[in-house]
């Protein structure tokens, strides 16, 4: 048997209703897909962004705050790490390099971050062009920064972006210890010396300066003995100021766990970004699970509502089905025709919804990436296919309800 031509004719008869049904199914599916795909894009993007930040050591306090400040350059007031701990770290043989991180300045919307040349090389994996900074007033820009090599830029105090350079931000910076009252005013202009490779982190929009610039601009000295104008390690142990965070690259995995244990002290905390992210993801995952359950329930309701609509439409066509029976069609042929009709609506809606949801997630990912600097790509993976598969399977099973209803109609009643 071949129920397709007659099912297709029935679809064409009520084409606007059919298109409406497909659109409703598609939008519902798209919602579920977008939530699922977007959540994964956010997870993968944020995890990749934190990849190069092997171990973070900071003052005891919120790991989240330190993580967001350091990796995602979303500064918040964090207590400063005791210079004594930094000193210990700098001398620790288990560390490949120890990179102080300093915030507090901006150029326009772009944050100016202080660190060492070694960390820039590590984060960027070799520069895209130019060279890394070699003097206090040189800088390296992120891959997405609009500034070109050779540009000379004025640095202003504050965090950039939405926080701007207003008094609130300045007060925050003072509270965070990244600035000292009245210490503002010594922000020499900087010259761009190089550009980093894309890192998929908010550092792609940042301007990275030597940590010494950050310190001296805030009246904290240079971390070196007076008269010593070189930048980067070795620092003078007694000239080190407090730091919001230090990124440590351990020599190996054993060293990583060793350092993490060793620097969990009353004066400091040490953590892998991944462990903090895992906690955040489990929170995010719980929220996603609830949303997914709600969207799945909404999808089931939509399918049920559409089935009710289909029964009403097919009821108007009961004469046609009766005529087919009179012409010799078996009950199973009628069942197949109605089933194909319903299945076509649901499967088409699900496929359109899959693409729509993907597109929607891609747009949201793009907007989020623009906003946060964390590179994100929405992809359709197994879990989205499972979601659509579950709905399609449900739809195909439920499609047999109208099929059974139509198939049970007495023929003669339909012919009158």
């Amino acid at each position, binding site marked *: *048997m*071949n*129920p397709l*031509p*007659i099912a*297709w*004719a*029935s679809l*064409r*008869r009520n084409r606007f209703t059919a298109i409406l049904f497909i659109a409703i199914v598609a939008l519902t599916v798209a919602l579920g897909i977008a939530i699922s795909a977007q959540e994964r894009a956010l997870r993968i993007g944020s995890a990749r962004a934190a990849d190069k930040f092997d171990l973070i050591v900071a003052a005891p306090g919120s790991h989240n705050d330190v993580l967001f400040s350091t990796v995602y350059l979303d500064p918040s007031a964090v207590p400063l790490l005791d210079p004594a701990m930094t000193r210990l770290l700098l001398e620790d043989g288990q560390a490949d390099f120890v990179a102080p991180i300093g915030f507090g300045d901006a150029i326009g919307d772009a944050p100016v971050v202080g660190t060492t040349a070694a960390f820039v090389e590590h984060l960027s994996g070799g520069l895209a062009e130019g060279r890394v900074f070699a003097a206090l007033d040189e800088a390296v820009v992120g891959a997405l920064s609009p500034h070109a090599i050779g540009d000379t830029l004025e640095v202003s105090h504050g965090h950039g972006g939405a926080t701007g350079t207003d008094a609130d931000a300045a007060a925050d910076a003072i509270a965070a210890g990244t600035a000292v009252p009245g210490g503002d005013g010594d922000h020499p202009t900087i010259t761009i010396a190089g550009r980093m490779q894309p890192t998929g982190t908010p550092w792609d929009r940042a301007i990275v300066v030597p940590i010494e610039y950050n310190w001296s601009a805030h009246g904290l000295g240079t971390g070196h003995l007076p008269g010593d104008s070189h930048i980067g390690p070795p620092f003078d142990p007694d000239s080190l100021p407090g730091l919001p965070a230090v990124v440590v690259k351990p020599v190996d995995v054993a060293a990583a766990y060793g350092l993490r244990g060793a620097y969990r002290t009353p004066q400091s905390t040490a953590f892998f970004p991944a462990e903090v992210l895992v906690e955040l993801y489990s929170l995010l995952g719980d929220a996603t699970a609830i949303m997914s359950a709600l969207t799945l329930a909404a999808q089931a309701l939509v399918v049920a509502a559409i089935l009710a609509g289909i029964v009403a439409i097919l009821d108007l066509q009961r*004469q*046609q089905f009766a*005529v*087919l*029976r*009179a*012409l*010799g*069609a*078996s*009950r199973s*042929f009628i069942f197949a025709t109605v089933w194909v009709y319903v299945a076509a609506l649901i499967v088409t809606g699900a496929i359109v919804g899959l693409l729509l949801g993907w597109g929607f997630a891609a747009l949201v990912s793009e907007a989020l990436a623009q906003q946060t600097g964390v590179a994100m790509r929405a992809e359709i993976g197994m879990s989205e296919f499972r979601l659509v598969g579950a709905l399609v399977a449900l739809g195909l099973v439920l499609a047999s309800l109208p099929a059974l209803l139509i198939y049970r109609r007495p*023929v*003669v009643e339909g*012919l*009158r």
Partner: protein
Amino acid sequence: MPGLNLAAAGLRLAFAGEGIIDLPELTLVPGTLTALTGPSGSGKSTLLYLLSGLLQPDAGSIAWAGQDLAGMRESQRDRWRRQHAGFIFQNFHLIEELSPLDNVLVPLWFDHFSAAAARPRAIALLDQLEVPRRRAHVSLLSRGEQQRVAIARALITDPAVIFADEPTASLDAASGQTVIAVLRDLALEQGRTVLVATHDAALRQQAGTTVQLDHGRTRQSEAAA
């Protein structure tokens, strides 16, 4: 295809209240156009549905060439119709979204995935009945042409028995005449068994046999000259 003999006996069907069929005996022979007549509500259509296996009688037998429809299950009766019967309706009941050709091919899809093998026959039938084939939708045809598409659909499987329910009632006189001529030809020239429920005097005049029903009973059964 030669027609089938019908020998129905002791047919009884009772609905809640009206429309009772009570028919002690009815025989139909191949090569005859039989008109089933009677006033509205006399049970013409009901008898047609009984004889085609769409309805089951409460009692009696409906033996087509020895095969008793009354003793068959629904699926067997469906198959009998598919193999032996063609149906023509007052309001054609074509699928408007399909082309004339596809409408004729509809019965093929009940059993086969592809109707391609029957296309030449469908085209021949439409040409024979002078239906313009090059229309995207059957709704673009005149009413007379639509009924002729329905006749082609009834004939596509080359059935031995043709059932027609008021086939001329919604046509103008000229179109009705064409349909009557076709039905007559199906019986007399092609030897099929043709049973037509009708109140059209023109059709009744052309019938070889007339069975008159009144409240489900045979009032008169006569063979015309």
